[in-house]
C-alpha cells in the first residue's frame, strides 16, 4: 500500500475569516510540494468549514480537511489541539505548517508533544532535501545574531511555525478546484477547562504592523513624545503603520503595541523607514527581513546603516517633514 504523502497547512480562522498567514503558507507549500511531490492540504477546524474552502483552493490547497464542531468556532487550546492531533495521528502527514500567531504559538507546541513531533519555531526559510526526505527549516535565534537550520530526521510529521509576512502569497485564480474532506472528531470527552469571556479588538490602523506594506518607525532620536507627530504625519501620507523602538516605548512616548523587535513585533513590510533608531540587534531582529529598509540617522556610524538599503545621514527633524512634503506634492 502506498501512503499518500501530504503537506498540511493549519488553516487558522477567526470569526470565520482565514488568517492572511495561511495563504502565505499555502503559497510556500506549493513550492515545497513541487520539490517533494507531496499533496498540499489544509486543515480547517471551525463551526462551518464548507464556506471557507474555496479561498484555500485558490491559494493552492488540493484538499481541505474540515473539522466542524460548535466547540471549534473560536480558538480554544484543548479542543483545537485534540482535533488536530487526532487527525494527524490518523492521516500521518509528512509536514504540518502553522502561522506563528498567538493561536499558532499555542496550538503547535501543544500538538507537537501530543503527536511526538519536532517543532521548529519562527522559520524564515523552508526548503526540501529531496535525497534525505527532510524539511530544511531555517530560523533566527539569539535575537537574530545567528541563523540555524533545523531538521527532524526521525519523527513525522515535521512541524514548523512561520511568522506573518515572511512568505509572499500568490492567489492562483478565483475558482481553483479542490476537494473538501469532512472529518468528525468527538470532543464530548474533552473536559471544558477554560472559557473565553471577552474578546476585544483595539482597532487602530497605525498599529496593524503585520498587515502594513509601509512602516515608518521612530526611535529615541525623535527626541520627545510630541515629536512623534512628524512620524505619524509621514506615515499618514504614505498610508503606513507606525512602529517604534523599545527605548521610546519604555520612555512612555508611544504604546507598546507599536514596538518592533525581539520583544515586540516582527514585521516584514515592503518598505521600513527607521527614523532616529540606532539599530540595536534586538530591534533588527524584528525588521531586518523587510524588503527595503530606509534609515534616517545623524550618526554615520549607527549600526542601522549596516542593514539599510538606503541610508540618509542627517537630522530627522528636517528629513522626515521634507519626505512627507515631497510625497504629498507627488500626489497632486
Amino acid at each position, binding site marked *: 500500500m502506498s501512503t499518500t504523502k501530504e503537506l498540511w497547512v493549519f488553516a487558522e480562522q477567526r470569526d470565520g475569516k482565514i488568517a492572511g498567514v495561511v495563504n502565505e503558507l499555502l503559497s510556500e507549500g506549493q513550492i515545497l510540494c513541487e520539490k517533494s511531490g507531496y499533496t498540499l492540504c489544509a486543515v480547517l477546524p471551525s463551526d462551518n468549514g464548507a464556506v471557507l474552502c474555496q479561498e484555500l483552493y485558490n491559494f493552492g490547497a488540493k484538499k481541505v480537511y474540515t473539522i466542524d464542531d460548535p466547540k471549534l468556532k473560536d480558538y480554544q*487550546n484543548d479542543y483545537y489541539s485534540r482535533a488536530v492531533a487526532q487527525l494527524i495521528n490518523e492521516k500521518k502527514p509528512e509536514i504540518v505548517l502553522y502561522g506563528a*500567531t*498567538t493561536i499558532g*504559538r*499555542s496550538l503547535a*507546541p*501543544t500538538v*507537537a*508533544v501530543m503527536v*511526538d*513531533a*519536532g*517543532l*521548529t*519555531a519562527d522559520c524564515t526559510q523552508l526548503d526540501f532535501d529531496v535525497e534525505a526526505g527532510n524539511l530544511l527549516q531555517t530560523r*533566527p*535565534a*539569539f*535575537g537574530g*545574531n*545567528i*541563523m*540555524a*537550520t*533545523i*531538521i*527532524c*530526521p526521525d519523527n513525522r510529521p515535521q512541524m514548523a511555525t512561520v511568522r506573518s509576512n515572511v512568505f509572499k502569497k500568490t492567489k492562483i485564480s478565483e475558482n481553483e478546484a479542490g476537494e473538501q474532506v469532512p472529518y468528525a472528531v468527538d470532543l464530548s470527552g474533552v473536559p471544558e*477547562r*477554560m*472559557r*473565553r469571556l*471577552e*474578546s*476585544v*479588538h*483595539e482597532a487602530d490602523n497605525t*498599529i*496593524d504592523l503585520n498587515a502594513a506594506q509601509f512602516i515608518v518607525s521612530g526611535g529615541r532620536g525623535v527626541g520627545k513624545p510630541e515629536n512623534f507627530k512628524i512620524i505619524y504625519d509621514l506615515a499618514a501620507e504614505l498610508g503606513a503603520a507606525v512602529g517604534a523602538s523599545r527605548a521610546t516605548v519604555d520612555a512612555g512616548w508611544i504604546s507598546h503595541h507599536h514596538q518592533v523587535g525581539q*520583544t515586540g513585533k516582527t514585521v516584514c513590510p*515592503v518598505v521600513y523607514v527607521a527614523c532616529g533608531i540606532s539599530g*540595536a540587534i534586538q530591534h533588527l531582529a524584528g525588521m531586518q527581513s523587510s524588503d*527595503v*529598509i*530606509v534609515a534616517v540617522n545623524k550618526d*554615520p556610524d549607527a549600526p542601522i*546603516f549596516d*542593514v*539599510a*538599503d*538606503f*541610508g*540618509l*545621514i*542627517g*537630522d530627522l527633524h528636517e*528629513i522626515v517633514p521634507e*519626505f512627507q512634503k*515631497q510625497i504629498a506634492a*507627488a500626489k497632486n
Partner: protein
Amino acid sequence: MNIVVCIKQVPDSDKVTIDRETNRLNRAGVPSIINPFDENALEMALQLKDAHGGKVTVISMGPPQAEEALRTALSHGADDAILISDRKFGGADTWATSYTISLAIKKLENVDLVLFGKQAIDGDTAQVGPGVAHFLDIPTLTYAKAIEVTGDTYKVTKVTEDGYEVWDIDKPCALTVVKEANQLRMPSLKKKMAAKKAEIPCWGFDELQPDEEKIGLAGSPTKVSKVFAPPVKLNKEILSGEPAEMVTELIKKLKERNVL
C-alpha cells in the same frame, strides 16, 4: 497558593556573536542573566503571593551554573528553588525540555499555578510552556498580562495581535507571561544574603526517573543541522547632503525599485 515559576538562564543576547569563519557561537565571557520574560513571570507570582499568601518555587533546568539564576530569583523574593541538572538532560530541544521540566513539577505537591516567560531570548521558540502544560495535563494560556483569583478558577487577560481576550481558566493551569504584565521588584539586601546561603536541591536522572528515550539529545526530535551568520546587505546606498536633495534622490530610487 503554591506557584511554580520556570526560569531559564540565558546569555545576555546583546553580546553573543557568531564567528563568520567557523560559524561557531562566541559565548565565552558573555554574562548570563535570567531570561527577561521570566522576570515578569516571577513578579506575577510574587504579587499573587503578596495578595493571597502561599509559596513561590522557582525551577531551572540547565548546567550547574544555572544555580546562579535561581539565587538571583530567591533574592527577588522567591521562597524555594530547584535546579534540574544532569549530563543526560543535555542537548534537549523543546520537546525533551518540556518533558523533563514536567517531571520535576509533578514531584511538587498541590501546585495551583505554573508560570513561564513568554519566550526565552536565546532559543526564542516560546514552545516550552504549552509543552509542559500538556505533560502535566493542565490547561494553558499564552501571552498572559494579568491574572485574578476567582474562587476555583482564574480570570486571565491575554494579549492578542490586535487587542486582548479575557478567559476563565480552571486551577491548576499554566500561563506564559508577557513583558507588559509588570516589572520585577528590586532584590532586598536581607533576601540577597539569605539567597547566597540557600540550599538548592539538584534533581537529576535518579530523582526524576525519566523515560530514557524522552530526554536529552535522544529525546529531541529536532536537530540543529547547521548554524551560520545572518546574511549581510550588499548594494546599499548612503546619501548625505541637503535634506531636500536626499529625499528627492530617495524617492527616485524607491520608484526604481517599484516600491513607491
